[in-house]
């Protein structure tokens, strides 16, 4: 029985007085108790459809045609056309939250920061199923326990900012499900979460679905999530449905070129050596440059030793000590990056990988440790540089940032953005600088005619290209890429990754590539370091790490990645509760024993090291 039937739905927006149709005759249905995945890139109209179902379209948008029929399994004879209900009327409000629940992508911002989660959940309950406060509270605590809060009684009084991203998303789930809706709309519910947390939340959604018998409309761009969650798949492209059907049909026999291209554009673990991602749309062709051979030096370009950095958090009280807590963000980290190599650094959010990059950039001062930069002629300890020496060193290490929107000044033209580093470091005269800026634009595949534009007139992928051009402006030797593609769509991601690879080959660049996405790191890196709780727990050449992961944390990470492959579904139950970085679930060999010897990196051969107790027998674990 289908509970949602959308037929020939058209949604238009008015922007600056111009009407534009963003959903062009979409038809789909959702069966009771089943999961339908709506897949597409950003801007394809998938979120707009979900907003229309909830009657929450922005003020400048509206349904211009078609119908959204919903029927409650409790009264299967009555079809309601949501598209015709008066906006903000009583009927649509009764459906919202009561019969149709919704969770959003950003668990950080979708809960009110100044109300407790108990308050916010109770509000939803009291709106649709009024009960006395005491009873409501009991009901909510049961629900909080059900979605995975360890202490539901206390959780009722927590504010969202006291919770991690994963717990906030669980609280959102509890809120959406407290009234037992017939349909749950999940708009990119796990995109902002770490892989292990993502696996847990997806698992929870499946369990709750089985228990409560609700249908899920899952909106996502991640085909790996789709393969693991969906019963039916609907692929949407530019507001039109290109393909739909049972998940088996869609993955085993993709017919439409868009879906085939989408499957090819996402990096996966089975790529052959040297295989390139195929971007959906090829970008502007770049000038052909012969790859530069990099002769392996005896000494690494960058070698980091015993790096440590602790942050003090918590409120400092006027009286007494307060609740000061020392967080060891980076704990005795050491690694080498050879010239021309790409070292991947992976780990969950909060593991310290960004702090490491900031220390190398000299934006953060470490508590101890040294970072030796050796260009073959002289060795300098970056941490000891000061004044003019530091200024002269700066151009040699540059950075590419995660967020292409906020990392470019909206008040500077592209010309000014790219020229600024040249001006600061007094490279050439004005004419030479202009020449250089034009060449940079060509290098990253952008038309030099765009130089006088401002960043807002570019797409996310183009902005990231500008960020790359800026990093290249001073001919650095080492580039730190901090999650350079995690804010981009799959299709654009492929373009940017290919661009980075080409630039690296042409210029003999050295990369430190930071990401939480293992598939992306697998595509880019030669060697990979895995970080957990501020320490590097395992470091190995790419193949060794993926074929023979030894550390339990690495294993958990690899097991949590959803594959866009029906034959390799996630084993949800294998994922450790409480997150993979919780060292209490690791085997004793990998844990520090009180009073015992300190953990050290044990060699496993071929440059494969794992953090464990010395003398532990690791061969059988490998």
């Amino acid at each position: 029985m289908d509970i949602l039937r959308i037929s020939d739905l058209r949604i238009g927006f008015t922007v600056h007085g111009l009407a534009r149709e963003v959903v062009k005759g979409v038809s789909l249905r959702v069966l009771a108790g089943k999961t339908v995945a709506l897949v597409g890139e950003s801007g394809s109209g998938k979120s707009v459809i979900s907003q229309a179902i909830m009657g929450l379209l922005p003020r400048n948008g509206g349904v211009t045609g078609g119908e959204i029929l919903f029927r409650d399994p409790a009264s299967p004879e009555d079809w309601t056309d949501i598209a015709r209900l008066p906006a903000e009327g009583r009927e649509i409000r009764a459906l919202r939250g009561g019969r149709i629940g919704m969770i959003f992508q950003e668990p950080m911002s979708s809960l009110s920061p100044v109300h407790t989660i108990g308050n916010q959940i109770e509000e939803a309950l009291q709106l649709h199923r009024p009960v006395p406060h005491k009873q409501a509270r009991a009901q909510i605590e049961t629900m909080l326990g059900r979605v995975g809060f360890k202490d539901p009684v206390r959780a009722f009084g927590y504010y969202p900012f006291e919770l991690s991203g994963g717990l906030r998303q669980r609280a959102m789930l509890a809120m959406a499900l407290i009234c037992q809706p017939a349909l749950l709309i999940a708009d990119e519910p796990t995109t902002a979460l770490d892989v292990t947390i993502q696996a847990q939340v997806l698992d929870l959604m499946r369990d709750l679905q089985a228990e409560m018998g609700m249908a899920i409309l899952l909106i996502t761009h991640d085909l790996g999530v789709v393969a693991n969650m969906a019963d039916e798949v609907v692929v949407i492209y530019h507001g039109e449905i290109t393909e739909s059907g049972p998940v088996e049909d869609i993955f085993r026999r993709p017919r439409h070129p868009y879906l085939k291209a989408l499957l090819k554009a996402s990096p996966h673990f089975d790529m052959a050596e040297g295989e390139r991602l195929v971007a959906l749309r090829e970008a502007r062709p770049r000038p052909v440059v012969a790859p530069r051979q990099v002769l392996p030096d005896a000494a690494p370009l960058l070698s980091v030793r015993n790096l440590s950095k602790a942050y003090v958090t918590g409120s400092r009280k006027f009286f007494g000590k307060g609740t000061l807590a020392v967080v060891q963000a980076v704990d005795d980290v050491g690694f080498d990056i050879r010239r021309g190599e790409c070292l991947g650094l992976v780990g969950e959010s909060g593991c310290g990988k960004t702090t490491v990059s900031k220390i190398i950039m000299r934006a953060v001062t470490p508590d101890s440790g040294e970072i030796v930069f050796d260009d073959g002629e002289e060795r300098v300890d970056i941490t000891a540089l000061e004044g003019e020496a530091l200024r002269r060193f700066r151009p040699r290490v540059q950075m590419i940032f995660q967020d292409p929107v906020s990392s470019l000044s909206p008040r500077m033209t592209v010309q000014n953005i790219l020229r600024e580093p040249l001006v600061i470091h007094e490279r050439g005269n004005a004419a030479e600088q202009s020449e250089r800026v034009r060449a940079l634009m060509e290098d990253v595949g952008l038309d030099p005619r765009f130089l006088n534009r401002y960043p807002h007139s570019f797409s996310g992928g183009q902005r990231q290209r500008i960020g790359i051009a800026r990093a290249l402006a001073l001919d650095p030797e080492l580039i730190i890429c901090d999650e350079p593609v995690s804010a981009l769509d799959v299709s654009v991601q492929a373009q940017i990754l290919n661009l980075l690879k080409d630039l690296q080959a042409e210029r003999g660049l050295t990369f430190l590539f930071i990401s939480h996405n293992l598939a992306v790191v697998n595509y880019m890196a030669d060697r990979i370091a895995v970080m957990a709780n501020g320490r590097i727990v395992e470091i190995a050449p790419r193949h060794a790490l993926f074929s023979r992961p030894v550390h339990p944390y690495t294993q958990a990470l690899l097991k949590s990645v959803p594959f866009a492959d029906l034959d390799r579904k996630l084993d949800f139950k294998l994922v450790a509760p409480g997150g993979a970085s919780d060292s209490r679930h690791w085997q004793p060999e990998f844990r520090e024993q009180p009073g015992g010897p300190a953990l050290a990196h044990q060699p496993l051969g071929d440059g494969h090291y794992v953090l464990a107790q010395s003398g532990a027998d690791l061969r059988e674990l490998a």
Partner: protein
Amino acid sequence: MLLQYILKRILVMIPTLFVTSALIFTVINLPEGDYFETLAAEMQAQGEKADLSRIEFLKREYGFDKPPVERYFHWVAGLLQGDMGYSFEYQRPVRDIVGDRLFLTMLVSFVTIIFTWVVAFPIGIYSATHQYSWGDYGLTFLGLIGLAVPHFLLALVFMYFANVWFGTSIGGLVDPQYLNQPMSWAKFTSILEHLWIPVIIIGAGGTAGMIRAVRANLLDELQKQYYVTARAKGLPPGKALRKYPLRMSLNFFVSDIGDILPSIVSGAEIVAIVLSLQTTGPLLIRALQAQDMYLAGSFLMFLSFLTVIGVLVSDIALAILDPRIRLQGAATK
């Protein structure tokens, strides 16, 4: 937890006030000479023979022959005991001169703040929820006029029309016969009769600014994801607006209280002169001109005290409103 926070804030006020008092004292003592020299010069200019021995006597009496540091501590010690010093100009203790004026000033300020809020809030909310509508444009236009017209001009215009239309003089805050008299019903009604005009005039600019701020803040909050979440729960629009975005936009508003208090007190001086209000503004200006050091100094201290109290009130209100400030001990903006 909250109590501790308040206590801590109050303790922090003490050094702040000390530093302010030192600054005020220094600034007032910066110009050449003191009140007595100004007095002697004025008398000589008017052809009178200055009684030098009397001036010398007064100087000694008030410790003006002692080093400034000593005089400073003498002044502060007096302030702490509630002794605001002696006004040379009026030859009376400062407390007696300020008396009623202080009360009237606080009354005008307080009523003006309330007026500003009562007018600005509904209009700001309407403007934000009906963005780009005729109502929004119209109210915005009115607000901009209020912002653009200088207060003293508005005061003159009001006085003129009040005279032409009602034939009454609207100057002052209370009929002169009640000034420095104990509070009585007649005095109270007299104050009420006079109060509304300065309140509207002084409040006009503030109201306009506040409308813009409420509108801008609320517009920001209306874009936030948690507002969509609230509506996705099925909350009626009015309730969703009140509970979430409005509550969040209050933050800005409350943190503004600290600035409002002193700016209304000190910003009203010119209006007070034009309307001849019996507030403290005109007194302060005269005291500064005459280098009437204790009067001016004590007065500025009062303004500073008001500022510090305003900040304290806004901080406490913020802590109550926003659990992030209360529990994390960090300010958010």
